[in-house]
């Protein structure tokens, strides 16, 4: 693929992108309290005294959140730090009850790792992971409920987040999009983050700078809290263009934090470096340093699920599918599971074609997801079994699948009820062919005169006469025999 370049008046510009992704940890309770992490509850119903930072309240680390961070680190092929530490990041905000966020500044739990991304042309690239650390989420300020006052919802305050920081390794909006998608896929496979960007379970801070080929990095801007892959791509395109225009008009890009406005299609300044917070990080004296055992890390590693890359490689090998097919079929863990459940007991090629074709089409048409698929894997396998053992032919099978989607009945029930069983009785097919030949004596003569193409006409007429239920291979064979007789 040709490199992504912005054409400026002074020549080509390269974009340099690094991402900080905040991923909410899947856990029943918060990072330092027993309050629930459930999404969508009434405001301030999942708030413990610790979360609300009442006087004398102390944080107690949730071991499951630590395990989730370690699992994620392992999934990112990263170094797991057996020693890490929680620090306080001090700043005042109404939805930050303690007046500080407990985070990991100097000693994160996970160090360097790597994520492999695949671009639309199939090219693969490694994006470096700098670190992953655990931290608390803040609450939510609600400004649109009252003309003069703001409200605070602390349900999210104290929920565990993983901040996953990449190296500035991405060079195009597409790569950044592919990175976020891939990261999301890995986290979902691991079960450490549900990856739900609409609910805010995953959001990205995007660092963007531009430079001429061969230059050192120029000043970067950080676009905060971008909450979809599409917006990540758009924000980078717009921000990079903005920076190119500034440089080319003789200006300088200021290091600052910016917001992406997808409605106006612009980024705008939130705060500049001058009024950046001095967070006064220091080790949280309420918590001991976090020391974990290698044996515990090993046991978590042993229990890790198969990750997307490994699954792809295995499916390609076991079921003889293409790289494209494996990437579609492993996009989500439950798609892969569904596929395997169907393909295991059936003709793998048939299963692949049917799932990627008619089955996905049926899901699309009904607007259902794989989780609430109208046809179970078992049901689909039964249908494919009926094709393989010649009970029905492919064309009839499409009709059966539609019926399955509509009625929820099983394939064999439908075949039985509608009498769709394939006719493999030689006599019956021969009789039907003979009738067609007799009724079309002129065409038979033409065929015999060398017009081979008419063979298809005879096949079609026969199938039509037999309501599509004839075994197509047998129709071909018998037709040939009778015509050539």
């Amino acid at each position, binding site marked *: 693929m040709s490199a992504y370049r912005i054409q400026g008046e002074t020549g080509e510009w390269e974009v340099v992108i690094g991402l900080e992704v905040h991923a909410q940890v899947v856990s029943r309770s918060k990072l330092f309290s027993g309050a629930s992490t459930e999404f969508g509850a009434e405001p301030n119903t999942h708030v413990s005294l610790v979360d*609300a930072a009442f*006087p004398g309240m102390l944080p107690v680390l949730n071991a499951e959140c630590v395990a989730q961070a370690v699992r994620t680190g392992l999934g990112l092929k990263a170094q797991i730090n057996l020693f890490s530490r929680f620090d*306080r990041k001090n700043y005042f905000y109404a939805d930050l009850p303690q007046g500080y966020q407990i985070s990991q500044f100097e000693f994160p739990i996970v160090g360097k790792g790597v994520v492999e991304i695949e671009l639309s042309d199939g090219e693969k690239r490694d994006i470096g992971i700098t670190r992953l650390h655990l931290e608390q989420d803040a609450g939510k300020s609600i400004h649109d409920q009252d003309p003069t006052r703001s409200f605070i919802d602390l349900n999210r305050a104290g929920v565990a987040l993983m901040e996953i920081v990449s190296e500035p390794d991405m060079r195009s909006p597409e790569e950044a999009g592919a990175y976020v998608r891939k990261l999301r896929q890995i986290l979902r496979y691991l079960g450490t983050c549900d990856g739900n960007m609409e609910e805010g379970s995953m959001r990205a801070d995007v660092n963007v700078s531009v430079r001429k080929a061969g230059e050192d990095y120029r000043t970067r801007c950080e676009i905060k809290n971008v909450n979809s892959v599409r917006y990540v791509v758009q924000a980078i395109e717009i921000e990079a263009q903005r920076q190119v225009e500034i440089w080319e008009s003789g200006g300088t890009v200021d290091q600052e934090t910016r917001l992406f406005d997808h409605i106006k299609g612009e980024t705008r300044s939130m705060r500049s470096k001058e009024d950046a917070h001095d967070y*006064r990080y220091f080790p949280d004296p*309420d918590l001991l340093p976090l020391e974990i055992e290698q044996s515990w890390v090993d046991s978590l590693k042993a229990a890790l699920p198969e990750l997307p890359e490994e699954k792809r490689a295995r499916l390609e090998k076991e079921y003889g599918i293409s790289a494209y097919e494996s990437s579609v079929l492993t996009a989500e863990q439950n798609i892969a599971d569904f596929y395997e459940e169907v393909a295991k007991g059936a003709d793998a090629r048939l299963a692949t074609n049917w799932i990627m074709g008619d089955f996905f089409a049926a899901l699309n048409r009904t607007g259902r997801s794989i989780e609430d698929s109208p046809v179970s894997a078992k049901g689909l396998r039964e249908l494919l079994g009926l094709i393989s053992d010649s009970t029905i032919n492919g064309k009839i099978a499409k009709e059966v699948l539609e019926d399955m989607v509509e009625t929820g009945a099983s394939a064999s029930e439908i075949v039985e009820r509608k009498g769709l069983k394939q006719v493999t009785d030689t006599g019956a097919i021969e009789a039907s062919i003979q009738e067609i030949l007799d009724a079309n004596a002129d065409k038979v003569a033409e065929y015999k005169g060398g017009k081979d193409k008419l063979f298809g006409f005879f096949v079609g007429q026969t199938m039509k006469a037999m309501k599509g239920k004839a075994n197509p291979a047998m129709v071909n064979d018998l037709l040939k025999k009778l015509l050539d007789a």
Partner: protein
Amino acid sequence: MSYHFDLTLAQARDALKAKKLSAVELVKAHCEAVERLDGRLNSFITRTLDQAREQAAAADATLQKGEGGLLTGIPLGVKDLFATKGVRTTAASHILENFVPPYESTVTTNLLREGAIFLGKLNLDEFAMGSTNLTSAFGGVENPWKKKDSDARLVPGGSSGGSAVAVAAGLVLGATGTDTGGSIRQPSAYCGITGIKPTYGRCSRFGTIAFASSLDQAGPMARNVQDCAILLEAMAGFDPRDSTSVEKDVPHYEATLGQGIKGLRVGIPKEYRTDGLSEEIQALWDQGISWLRAAGAEIVEISLPHTKYGLPTYYIAALAEASSNLSRYDGVRFGKRVPAKSLDELYEATRGQGFGEEVKRRILLGTYVLSSGYYDAYYLRAQKVRTLIKQDFLNAYEKCDFILAPTAPSGAFAWDEKPTDPVQVYLNDIFTVPASLAGVPAMSVPAGLSHEGVPLGLQLIGRYFDEETLFRAGYVLEQAAAFHHRPTLHAGVSA
């Protein structure tokens, strides 16, 4: 029979168990003493006397059945830094002046479990920041002691000044204190009572309003060593809600008291003999050494070479943590809120009016030492020195079993003698902060009167989690000193 206020906590406990005294009588007498004397002393911020009288009747019922815990029926006071469920908890600050917690601190929970009866919440320096108890938003506390031939009001020390005064004046049989840099030991010395700061991690900090988390430690303050031993056993223990509390069994401290100190080695830190040390304190210290030697202990000179860095290290570490710990008092969720037009103005107004001068000074200093560009020079350096100070103690304990030192450089002084330079006030903590920085246990025992007639204390500093040796040695010191003086203002004196 009229109550004489001569009983120690241990004696009152025994009398209750033996049914020679009822809890109702005992509590009634103390409630009356509070009503009679505390208008002047101001050692209580909040009184819960009615509640206490009711609990006393229940305690008697329990005792009648031959049941009860270590402290059933014993009237105590609680430093107003411990959250008490349903009872206003202020930290002696305007910012929490109407705060009623819906939860109970672990330390007070433990005391209640053992049957203690709380007469109320005791005064302190605001957020435990001070060593005079004059920074309280609820007014200063008067030390019940008087200098000879003077009626001047004396400071009780701080920050646990209310606790020290309530015990010294006979208003309660014991009290909880907290010690961050000497806040139990120094007021104990100033008021002629005994107080122990246990090893960091021995008592849970859950529900205790934080000043400096890595230093704060709760402990008992009482009339003598035995009473402290009883109280600490009740207060201490591992708490899963405090990650820095330590999972170690709590010994039956009272049983160690008579064991003596024969053959134990007493370390005398040469660095504590500073040029500025008064002759009087020097003499008291030498007297203490003689008493311990006479009890069969071996005296060894030890070195704590980083002592001189103790005060600056303490004030950097403690204030850095405090600046962050006090951020939660922002007027948003609880406590005082001064209405304003914007969020920043809300913070400024609430914190500006809610905090007193000393607290603001410490928040500013703490913020400064953590600021970018100063962090390495102050906070980081202080952490390194703190490690060296810990190492000093570990090295010293190779040569000795415990350490003897003065508690404070002087006795109590008058309210109007308080230095105007805050640094001069901070110097009061010179002998107490090293043990706090190291996290080792330390106890103050009254050992004599100054030439002006006010109490002076000696300090015993022990190994990590070896409070038992402190109780043994403290008991020896107490027997030898035979400190039976009473303050001028005392519940047992008809006034």
